[in-house]
């Protein structure tokens, strides 16, 4: 893991056109390079370069890939990994043949769907008849029991089947059950065969039940056929699994090659390309290009500090164990190039906050169990859709569960009960107003703890910001910014002042000989920030502004900055009281549920209430604690040091999921 964003270097290489394909494949295999368009060369040289001419348009490749993916998804086939061997032995891509193969498969699936539709219509028809019978709407049914005087009964049956209904012709008298709306058609056909109604009253009485029983049986068998056809459709795709996977790899590699080559420029015999590579991989990439070209290439490396830092892509490396927290950082934004990697700090801060808000050994264990079970289920079925408890949440619960358990041990809580002595203090007892000794005696003490925790987090944020600014050599901001040294000093004065005031029992403000001079010096720094910034800007070639404009800007900036300094830091700090708030709510809710559980005399009811209470608290409080921890990280911690102005590093490789220009 790197403490800071990864150092980057820009590669510019020229290779012979004959070696282009080999180079592209080798670079894709490495997957550590983000390509950039050659746009920095002088215009006269650029004119001699030509753009990449596609053999197969990339849009066609993408359409084909999406089509293969759609069919694979329908057949529950996971996308394959592209290995080095699959590139080396990559066959030519015959788009027309591929299209024909997919059309054939798609066509055979359509045939199955057609069969399914016919069966479904029959099922609907039989169901309609049964429903009429069940709802006593016999009037819509046309039951006939009788015999034919001439003609072949098989012929009659075939003609009746075309209308639809249940026809029992295996024994005499024949039974025909149709819908009344078809009765005229049925009569016309039956008349041709000399149908006469049977006088057998027993047969007449039992005919309806027999016909409905048959309809039910047919529905059962047709539903079986429907399921088999669904299965058959899936099987037909599964039978083509190997072909689909091979085609997908072929199309995907061609698509990636097209993507990479779209960044290339060409002279008559050479290919020129450029891109960013993490500095750790530069030797490897150089070797790869040399190997692919047999040494017939020119490679040039440019360090990131020689170009505009805003244009350098940002790569952060964190150990696998911190992946869920890396995603939290990614969701927020990308840090600037050369700044501190926020992931490890986010992980620590997030887990501490969650543990303080949701401290319970038993409930934490439940979260851990849910995380483990969910992870196993998703691992077993990689194509499974994310449910309410998503893959990411399961992964996160593997951390939040243990954090909550540690909190539970510190505060002596297991499913909201004081099952074992607390390592630090008994949270539930303090909330209930029955402290058992120690320094923490009331909820105010808990609030004080969380405020101190908040102060530590804010100081850490400021400290990280100072390191970032020093590394980026932005000394002006380091001194004058509200998150710079002046902000740090004002914040420290504010804390000293607040503690003095609280320490006196809210009776008097503290005083010290250094207080006013330091505060006024800080305010003076805030005042001169604007004019000084203007002078420095002028030296760097920025435009001239009128003195009145600079003066007005200075006054306005001063007012806003001072407001932000005082109210911003105050609200940021007090915001951490929510950590205590959630913790107290957790303890109070558990206590309320146990009091409710104690009310009924019935032990089963008591256990049920306790279980329901625990489940509700785990779901609702767990969710609240998770969201509040994230909020504190994003708004109170990140805003101190994380500008989010960076561009994410997106290397193109065989495992790249998305290809974008």
């Amino acid at each position, binding site marked *: 893991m790197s403490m800071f964003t990864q150092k980057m270097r820009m590669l510019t290489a020229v290779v012979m056109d004959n070696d282009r394909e080999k180079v592209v494949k080798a670079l894709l295999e490495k997957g550590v390079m983000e390509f950039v368009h050659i746009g920095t060369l002088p215009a006269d040289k650029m004119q001699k370069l030509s753009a990449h001419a596609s053999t197969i348009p990339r849009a066609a490749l993408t359409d084909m890939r999406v089509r293969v993916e759609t069919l694979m*998804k329908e057949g529950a086939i996971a996308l394959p990994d592209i290995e080095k061997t699959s590139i080396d032995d990559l066959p030519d891509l015959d788009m027309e043949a591929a299209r024909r193969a997919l059309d054939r498969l*798609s066509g055979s699936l*359509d045939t199955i*769907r057609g069969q399914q539709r016919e069966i479904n*219509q029959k099922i*609907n028809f039989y169901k309609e008849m049964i429903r009429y019978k069940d709802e006593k709407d016999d009037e819509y049914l046309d039951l006939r029991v009788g015999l034919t005087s001439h003609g072949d009964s098989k012929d009659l049956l075939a003609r009746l089947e075309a209308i639809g209904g249940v026809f029992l012709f295996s024994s005499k008298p024949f039974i025909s059950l149709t819908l009344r709306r078809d009765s005229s058609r049925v009569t016309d056909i039956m008349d041709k065969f000399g149908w006469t109604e049977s006088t057998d009253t027993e047969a007449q009485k039992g005919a309806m039940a027999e016909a409905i029983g048959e309809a039910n049986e047919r529905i059962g068998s047709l539903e079986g056929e429907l399921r088999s056809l669904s299965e058959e459709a899936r099987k037909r795709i599964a039978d083509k699994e190997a072909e689909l996977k091979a085609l997908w790899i072929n199309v995907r590699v061609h698509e990636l090659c097209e993507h990479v080559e779209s960044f290339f420029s060409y002279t008559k015999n050479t290919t020129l390309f450029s891109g960013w590579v993490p500095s750790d991989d530069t030797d490897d990439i150089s070797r790869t290009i040399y190997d692919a070209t047999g040494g017939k290439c020119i490679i040039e490396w440019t360090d990131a500090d020689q170009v505009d830092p805003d244009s350098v892509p940002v790569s952060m490396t964190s150990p696998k164990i911190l992946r869920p927290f890396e995603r939290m950082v990614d969701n927020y934004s990308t840090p600037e190039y050369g700044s501190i990697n926020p992931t490890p700090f986010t992980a620590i801060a997030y887990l501490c906050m969650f543990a303080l808000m949701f401290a319970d050994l038993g409930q934490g264990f439940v979260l851990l169990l849910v995380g483990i079970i969910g992870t196993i289920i998703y691992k077993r079925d990689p194509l499974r859709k994310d449910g309410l408890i998503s893959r990411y949440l399961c992964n996160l619960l593997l951390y939040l569960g243990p954090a909550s358990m540690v909190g539970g041990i510190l505060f002596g809580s297991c499913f909201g009960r004081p099952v074992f002595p607390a390592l630090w203090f008994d949270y539930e007892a303090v909330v209930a107003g029955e402290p058992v000794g120690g320094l923490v005696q009331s909820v105010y003490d808990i609030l004080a703890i969380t405020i101190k925790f908040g102060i530590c987090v804010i100081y850490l944020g400021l400290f990280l910001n100072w390191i970032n600014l020093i590394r980026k050599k932005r000394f002006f901001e380091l001194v004058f910014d509200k998150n710079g040294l002046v902000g740090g000093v004002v914040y420290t004065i504010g804390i000293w002042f607040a503690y003095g005031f609280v320490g006196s029992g809210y009776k008097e403000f503290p005083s010290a000989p250094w207080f006013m001079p330091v505060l006024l010096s800080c305010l003076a720094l805030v005042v001169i920030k604007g004019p000084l910034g203007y002078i420095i800007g002028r030296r760097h070639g920025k435009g001239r502004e009128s003195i009145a404009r600079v003066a007005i800007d200075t006054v306005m900036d001063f007012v806003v900055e001072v407001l932000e300094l005082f109210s911003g830091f105050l609200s940021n700090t007090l915001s951490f009281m929510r950590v205590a708030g959630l913790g107290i709510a957790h303890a109070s809710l558990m206590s309320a549920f146990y009091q409710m559980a104690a009310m009924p005399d019935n032990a089963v009811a008591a256990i049920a209430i306790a279980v329901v209470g625990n489940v509700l608290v785990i779901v609702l409080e767990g969710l609240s604690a998770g969201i509040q921890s994230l909020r504190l990280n994003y708004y109170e911690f990140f805003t101190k040091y994380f500008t989010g102005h960076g561009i994410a590093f997106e290397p193109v490789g065989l495992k790249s999921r998305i290809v974008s220009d």
Partner: protein
Amino acid sequence: MSKVSDYAFVNAKLRARIGIMRSSHLIDEMIKAPSLGEAVSKLEGTRFGHIAEVYRSTGDLQQAELSMMEEEIASYREIAGYLPAHSARFLTVLLEKVEMDNLKNALRLWYSDVVRHHMISFRSAYVCRSLIVHPIDYDKIMNAESYQEMARAFAGTPYEEVVSRFSLDSLTENGLFPMEIALDHLWFKHLDEALRHLKGDDRKLAEKIYSVDVDLKNILMLTRYSYYFHLPPEKLKSVLIPMGYIATEADKRKAAESDDPMGTIREIVERHYPQISEEIAGIRRTTDDLTAAAENADQILRIEAYLGERRKKEYMKLLGGSPFSIGVVLAYFFLYKHEDSLVSAVLSAKNYKWTEDRIREALS
């Protein structure tokens, strides 16, 4: 209750749902899909996911469309549950439109069976039989052997009176069209009444949007039934929905009694909707000449496209208006229906193996 408490929750919910409607992207992917099955697969992971499931298990597109309609009904009921009583009542009238379409399907099947003597057995399964707004006995409609029997299916519903105005003979002679128009008029009458029950800004907003809706419907009636099907002016007057600018203005100017009724109506339409005056002027009253008929069809398609676009714009304007009004609800259901119709149209086109270009042309 304040407007904020009435609408804050439901409108936030609907705005979030509108935000994830991605019809253009989805429709484009569906059109590109080379087969119906592959087009259906694109619905996975969208709010139409259940349609893909129904299609895969039954292979039956109409079954999937029925499930889409059931979903729409459920959506109306869900949203009505979040609204204050007067707005919920208005939504129930909008749901009546869904019921009306379902009812028309049932009537068409009955007509097909009894009047035209076509078999309807398999098709009857695609009519939604559960209660939508009024207790209509759909089974009775589709199994009725006579007009009187069919009419009894509407007993105790507002449709009873409309159905009683017709007979088997009149339908045999004129087709179902007059009855469908009468049902449409009934719905617009209900809509007009429901609009009066809305309060303050909600009423203004809804009146404005439905006034445009009615105008657009009337323009379509005029172009289709006057120019295309040669409906005489006196009958045309009874076809027009007596709401909105065009009908009110035509009534004011006594267009039906004038020497040139169609000229007067055309003038009214052109004044209020000048963007389509050229198309309307271009329509010729003859179907003897095949070229003219084809040209007329093209002009009408262009008018329909313009009116559809205009309608969409009016509804989209609602989203930029007050966040605590019925506007967001109306816009949501418009977009919902629009998306449903597009998905349905593309699936049907794929079923008939239309080419990508033809589908795009038909949808544009």
